[in-house]
């Protein structure tokens, strides 16, 4: 009886993968504020803040770079992604199918789902470091790539299974969970950071800045790590969610919004999660370094536990879940577009299993800054292409959504744009020495230009 009820609930999950969101399912601005705050006050925040310390960011660069980078990210959501989301109310995957054709969308969806799996895997790994505290799980070294042992694998499997089951029940449940946890999480970050300040020698507010400069964000990277400058920080803050704003993945989320201004609600995530939480977790790591500095180890769970006790460890677990859940959900949607007849929950189960497997490798956490930049870069050209197709093509007399209009299985200009822009980014990196964090901006314009050019030639040939 129980199993039948459970299955009926799973079968009833409808996420409108191939149809516009009806009016009754639209959500308020406040709902998006909570969702973004929850999603971006996440397990990765416990990693990214410390990685800035490890990469030798200076205090001044960090405060200013994060401020400007986060403002640019919010503007990208509000002016690039949200207007298309509320006009069309379709998932990114369905819109791409109409533009690129089913074959290219198939490849894109596979790459996208895989990237989302790795990202969600990092969150699960972060949560597992907290779950492992009672079991005496040793902290991983900064240079670790492979699983440390069976205990680590068992913990990751447990956390991954729970996360997958929650994601299987659909977006509403994920959102409810994020809404409940979001205000509490940010306060735990804040409280933990304030409480450990005396351990760093700060007993008055005016002592904070000198300590921030000399002890926390010293500007000197850990041995073997590349230095992060102001520009690294600005571009990282702007583009760490590149796939979601200028890459348009959040069309799938913002299509539930009543108005395009819901895009500004991303400020909740940027300024609480990607500002307060990054600074707070950097402070916590500076305290952790006082004890383990020579060992070159890092584990978000013990870092938070040392400062905030059980509540801190709990926060790491919850923070991991609130981001892993929507990320697994997004990956599920990506695969759903490949198999429209398959039930959403079955696809989410497959995605959750791949995610859990990826989470077993600590390299995903230790190289998170680089991975986040790569994942955004790989997916970004499709966002540029969609933007061009939606806004510029009608004004230039070109046919929008050409694959759907002409019944094409593969839109060659889209394939050339994706491959060509990534090749151009690789060339910029190799020949001009541009680091991966800076490739997103030129890459977006290259992709937009390439798609315009190739589509112009392609559509001219189609009509003659």
């Amino acid at each position, binding site marked *: 009886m129980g199993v039948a009820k459970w299955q009926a609930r799973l079968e009833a999950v409808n996420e409108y993968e191939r149809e516009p969101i009806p009016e009754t399912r639209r959500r308020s601005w406040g709902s998006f504020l909570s969702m973004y705050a929850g999603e971006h006050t996440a397990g990765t925040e416990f990693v990214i803040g410390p990685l800035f310390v490890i990469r030798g960011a200076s205090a001044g660069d960090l405060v200013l770079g994060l401020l400007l980078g986060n403002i640019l990210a919010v503007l990208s959501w509000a002016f690039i992604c949200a207007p298309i989301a509320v006009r069309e109310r379709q998932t990114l995957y369905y819109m791409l199918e109409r533009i690129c054709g089913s074959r290219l969308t198939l490849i894109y969806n596979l790459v996208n789902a895989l990237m989302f799996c790795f990202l969600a895997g990092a969150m699960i790994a972060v949560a597992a470091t907290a779950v492992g505290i009672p079991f005496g799980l040793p902290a991983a070294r900064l240079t670790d790539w492979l699983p440390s042992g069976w205990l680590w694998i068992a913990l990751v499997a447990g956390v991954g299974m729970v996360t997958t089951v929650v994601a299987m029940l659909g977006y509403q449940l994920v959102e409810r969970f994020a*809404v*409940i946890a979001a205000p*509490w999480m940010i*306060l735990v970050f804040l*409280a933990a950071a*304030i409480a450990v300040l005396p351990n760093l020698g700060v007993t008055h507010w005016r002592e904070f800045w000198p300590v921030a400069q000399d002890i926390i964000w010293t500007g000197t990277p850990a041995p073997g790590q590349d230095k992060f400058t102001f520009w690294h920080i600005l571009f990282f803050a702007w583009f760490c969610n590149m796939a979601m704003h200028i890459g348009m993945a959040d069309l799938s989320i913002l299509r539930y919004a009543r108005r395009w201004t819901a895009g500004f609600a991303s400020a909740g995530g940027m300024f609480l999660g990607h500002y307060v939480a990054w600074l707070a977790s950097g402070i916590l790591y500076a305290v952790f370094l006082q004890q383990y500095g020579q060992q070159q180890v890092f584990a978000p769970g013990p870092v938070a536990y040392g400062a*905030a006790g059980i*509540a801190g460890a709990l926060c790491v677990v919850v923070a991991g879940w609130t981001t892993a859940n929507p990320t697994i959900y997004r990956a599920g949607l990506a695969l759903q577009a490949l198999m429209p007849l398959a039930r959403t929950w079955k696809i989410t189960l497959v995605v959750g299993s791949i995610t859990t497997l990826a989470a077993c490798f600590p390299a995903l956490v230790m190289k998170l800054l680089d991975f986040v930049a790569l994942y955004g870069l790989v997916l970004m050209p499709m966002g540029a292409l969609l933007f061009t197709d939606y806004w510029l093509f009608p004004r230039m007399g070109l046919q929008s959504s050409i694959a759907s209009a002409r019944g094409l299985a593969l839109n060659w200009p889209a394939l050339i744009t994706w491959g060509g822009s990534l090749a151009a980014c690789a060339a910029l990196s190799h020949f001009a020495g541009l680091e991966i964090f800076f490739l997103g901006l030129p890459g977006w314009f290259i992709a937009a230009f390439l798609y315009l050019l190739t589509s112009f030639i392609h559509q001219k040939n189609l009509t003659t």
Partner: protein
Amino acid sequence: MKLLLRFTEILGLCLTLLPSLAVFFGRLSLERNQDFMLAGSILWFVARGLRKT
């Protein structure tokens, strides 16, 4: 009932954040602050969970 739950939520958040200020000003130990944070977390999740269901 709703009012009581809302009050409990706020109390939970206050217990999570405010004792850390006492630690900062040297009026409370870090360990005792951790107890307060845990109590605040439990209050928050129970009250918020009940109010949302």
